[in-house]
C-alpha cells in the first residue's frame, strides 16, 4: 500500500501512522456541549466507500495529511496537507 504525500510523493504505507476520520479536524468549541463532543470524539460515519482520513508521515517529512480513499477498494483518490484542509475548513 502506498499513499501520496503532498510533499514527498507516493510513499510506502510503512512510513505513515494512521489517525482516523478527518472529522478530527473539526474540533468543537469548548462550550459546544456534551452531544457535540461525543460526536467529535466517538461517533463516525465510517463509510464503506470514499472517506477522508488522517495520516502522519512520521517516518518521512512529518506532515499530517488528509487522504481521500475508498475503504472498500483501498483506491486512493488524493491527498492534501492537514494544515491546508484545516485552513480551508475554517475559511468556509
Amino acid at each position, binding site marked *: 500500500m502506498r499513499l501520496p504525500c503532498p510533499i514527498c510523493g507516493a510513499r510506502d504505507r510503512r512510513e505513515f501512522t494512521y489517525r482516523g476520520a478527518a472529522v478530527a479536524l473539526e474540533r468543537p468549541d469548548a462550550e459546544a456541549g*456534551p452531544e457535540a463532543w461525543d460526536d467529535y*470524539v466517538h461517533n463516525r460515519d465510517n463509510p464503506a466507500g470514499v472517506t477522508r482520513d488522517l495520516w502522519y508521515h512520521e517516518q518521512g517529512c512529518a506532515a499530517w495529511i488528509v487522504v481521500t480513499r475508498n475503504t472498500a477498494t*483501498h483506491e486512493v483518490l488524493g491527498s492534501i496537507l*492537514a494544515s491546508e484542509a*484545516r485552513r480551508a475548513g475554517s475559511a468556509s
Partner: protein
Amino acid sequence: MRIEGKGLVEGRTPISFTFDGTRYQGFEGDTLASALLANGVRMVGRSFKYHRPRGVMTAGSEEPNALVTLGFGAAQEPNMRATTVELREGLWARSQNRWPTLGFDLLAVNDLAAPFLGAGFYYKTFMWPRRFWERVYEPLIRRAAGLGALSGAPDEDRYERAFAHCDLLVIGAGPTGLMAALSAAKAGADVILADEDVAPGGRLLAETIEVDGISGAAWAREMAAELAALPNVRVMTRTAITGAYDQGTYAALETRADALARRPGAACGTFWRIVARRSILAAGALERPIAFANNDRPGVMMAGAVRAYLNRWGVAPGQSVVVFGNNDSAHRTAADLDEAGVHVAALVDSRHYATCDLDVPFYPGAEVCDTQGRRALESVTIRSAKGEERLRADCLAVSGGWNPSVHLACHMNPRPVWNADLLAFLPPENALPGMVAAGAAAGDFSTRACLQGGARAGQEAARDLGFKGGELAVPMAEDAPCDIFPLWQVPGRGRAWLDFQNDVTVKDVQQAAHENFRSVEHMKRYTTQGMAPDQGKNSNVAALAVLADATGRGIPETGTTTFRPPYVPVPIAAIGAGGSGKGFAPERLTPSHDETRQRGAPMIEAGLWYRPGYFPRDKETHWRQSCDREVNMVRGAVGVCDVTTLGKIDVQGPDAGAFLDFVYTNMMSTLAVGRVRYGLMLREDGHVMDDGTCARLGAQHYLLTTTTAAAGQVMRHLEFVHQALRPDLDVRLASVTEAWAQFAVAGPKSRELVNGLLDAPVGDATFPYMACGAVRLGGINARLFRISFSGEHAYEIAVPARYGAALFSELVARAEAMDGGAYGMEALNVLRIEKGFITHAEIHGRTTAFDIGMQRMISAKKDCIGKAAAARPGLVEEGREQLVALKPVGAVKELLAGAHLFNAGDPATSAHDQGYVTSTCFSPTLGHVIGLGFLKAGRARIGERVRMVDHLRGSDTLCEVLDPIQFDKDGGRLRG
C-alpha cells in the same frame, strides 16, 4: 527411466542424493522429482487423511503429493515439493506423514475406515465424555494430522528482505512474459521479469514446440540473453510473485541457487516487495485432473507433467503409459512419448469426435473409470462403447484441461469469470489496478497466441506509461485452437479424488451438498477441499463443477472461493527476515551506555532504550542491596542518573506560549523565562496522556520533556495539534532528544557537585527550585535545570551529546568522591514512590487528572486538549479509583503490584473490588514497604485499613491507606 537423447540435463554433472535412506544418482538440472522418477521411484508420500500411497503428479509448485522433508537438525525443512527442489550434491530427503515407513504405514488403516471418516464426520462425534476431547481424541487427531515436522530448533534465519521498483512487472517468463518484457523494455520501460522456475521459458522448456524454427527452449534462451543485456531489465528467476497488494505493490519470494546461497554472508532467499506502476500477469495455466475411481495412485500424473519430465529432464515416468484426456494435451503427450520410444498403451479421449493419426491404440469417446495397484499403478480400466477393458500400465497421464493462473489477478477480491468455451475461469477485467493478463493466464492457449498476447500487452503497458515504440515481430509457432469437452468426473463406483492432499473425493462434495453445505464456501469449509498446501490449484474447478452438479446450478452461479496470498507458501523466516533475536527492534543506547556496562549494571529495556537497573558494588549480592544504597546515597549525598531517554522537544515561535496553553492542562504562556513548570497533557478523550516539564529558555523558546515511553506519541500529538487543529499558530517543533545528553544530579550535595563543574557556580538566589538556564562547563555550552524526580535538591544538566559519555564518567567519579554515585532505575523508582510521583504505572491510559488528584491543574481560564471530555460526569465521580499510597500493617509486611484491594472483611471477589496496587518498593528512607495504588474514593479514605489480596502469589494482608506523598510532604528538601 532416462531416455537417451531427450531432455536438457544431457551431459551434465552427476549428483548423488538420498531419499528415505537410499542413495540415488541424478544430474545437475534435475529436480528431486525428476531424479526420483528417473530412478524408478514411484511412491514418494502418503496422503493427509487416508494415508494413501502417492507419487509425483505434477512438475511444478502446485504439486499435491510429492511433499518431502529435506535435511535434518536445525536445517530440517518440511513439506518441500519434490517437483521444485533443485537437486544438489548430498541432498537428503525423506518422505513424511507415515509411520514407521513409507512402504508400511500403520495409519493406512484409515483408508479402510474411510466410510466412517467422510466429510465433516468429526463434527458429529468425539463429544462424549466431555473431558475426552482434550485428553484422548484431540491428541490422537493432532498426532495423526499434520504433514512434515519442524525440527524444534531455532531457524538459522538467513533470509533477507528487499525492495525493488520498476515501471512494469512481468509475472511469468514463458513465451508470453518473454515477449511482454522485451517489448516494454525496447520501448524504454524499466522492467522486472520474474519467474518461479530456475530459467525463463515456462512451458517451452517442457514441450517439443518450435518457435521461429528453433526449439522453444533454445528460443527462450536467446530471448533471456537479449533481455539480460538490456540495462533497464532485471530478470529474476527462482522468484515467485506471491501476492498482489495495494497501489502496485507485489510480494515475491526469491530462492537462491544452492551455490550462491552457500557463499559467506549470502542469504538463502529474499522476500521482495516490488513496486510496479503496471504489471502483466503472464503466469500461464495449470493442467487439471479428472475425477475417476482411484485416480490418486502413484503413477497417475498430469499429461503436461509427463511431457515436462520427458522433454525437459529426459525421464519417462513409466514404461507403459495410458494417456487420458478431454482435450489435445493428451494427444501431445501421446505423441511425445511415442516419438521418444516410450510405449503408449492407449490414448483415451473422452471426445467422441476426436481423431488421432498417431500409431497408438486410440479410444475416442472413452474414459478411464478405475485404476489398480496399491503402491504403484499397475493397470487402468477403460470404459468405452465396447465395455470395460483393463490395460497394464505403470503410468497414466491425465488432462482435464487447463486452468489459467488467475490467482494474483484475484488477490484484491474480484472473482474470476467463467468462460464456457474454454471451460475455464479467466481473470476479470481491471480486477487489479494496473494489471493486465496475457497468454495462457488470459485463456490464450496456443504458443502463437501467447507470443502475440505478450508482445501486445508489453507494448500497451509501455505506451500507457508514456513510452513509445516496442513493436516486436511475433515469431511463428503452433497456433492450435482450444478444443475441449466438459469432463469433470467419470461416473462409477469407488472413490474419485478431487483434492488429493486433503483426501476430498467426489462423494465428500456430494455429501456436503446433501447436508446443506451448498454455498461454495460452506462446501470448502465442511470438506476442507482447497485448504491443503496446494490451496485447491489442482482441485478447485473440478470440485466446483461437482458441487454445481449436486446442487443443480451452473458453475458460474456456484461461484468460487476467495483467492488469497500467498500464491505459493512462503517461509515465516523469509517474510519475517531479520526479526529474530536482537533484530526485532532497533536498540537505542544512551551516552552513558558503555560506562554503565563497564560498571556491571544490568540493563533494562525501556521502550527501545536500554537503561541501568542498578550499579552493583563489591559485596552486594542482591539487587535490593544496591538499590537501597543508591536511594540512601541520593537522600544523603548525591546520585547521578542518565535521563537522556526523556523526550525533549523544542517549541519555538511567536505563538509558542499559546500553543502550549492548548496542549497542556495548565498555563505555560505565563511561565517566566528561565523557569520550569510541571505540565500535564491529556488525550482528547480526557484521560492523561503524559506528564513532564516545560522550561522557558527564551521569550519564544520553550523546551518540553516527555516520559521515555511517550516521547514519540507526544511528538506526533503535538504535530497533530499544530498542523491539523491550529495551523494558524506560528510555532515550530523539533525533537532534540538525541542532541543533548542529560543527567540528573540529585541529593543534598548536588549543588556542590554541579558547581564543581560549572565555569560559573550557581546558588539558591540565582538558581532557585524550578529555574533553568544556559551555563558553561569546561568551555562547553550546556543547560541546567533545577528540577527533581527524587524529591531532593536536584539538577538536570544537559550537554551536547558528544560530551555525554565523558560528562557521565566525570559526574559519577566526583559523586563517588562525595559518598554518592550513579543510580539506576530501581532506585529512581523507590525515590519517586516515596514522593508519590507518578509514572506510566499510574498514568496507564485509563486515569484522569481527577484520579491522580491533579484536577486543579486543568486551568479554568482556557480550553485545552481533553478538557471537554475530562468534564464528562463519569470521569469526575467521587467513587472513582483515586491515587493513594499504601503500607502493609498486617502480619505480612508485603505489598505486591497487581494485587487488588478490598474492604477489610470483604471477600476477594469482583463484586467487592475496591482498587489495585500499581507500584511497590521497600523504602529504605521510611524503613518499610510502601506502594502506590488506586482506591475507590481513596482521597477520602486516608487512614483507613483495606485488604490487599494477590491470589496469584498467595498474599493477603491489611494495608493502611496513606497520602500519596510519604516523604517530605512540604517539599522543603526540593527548595533547600
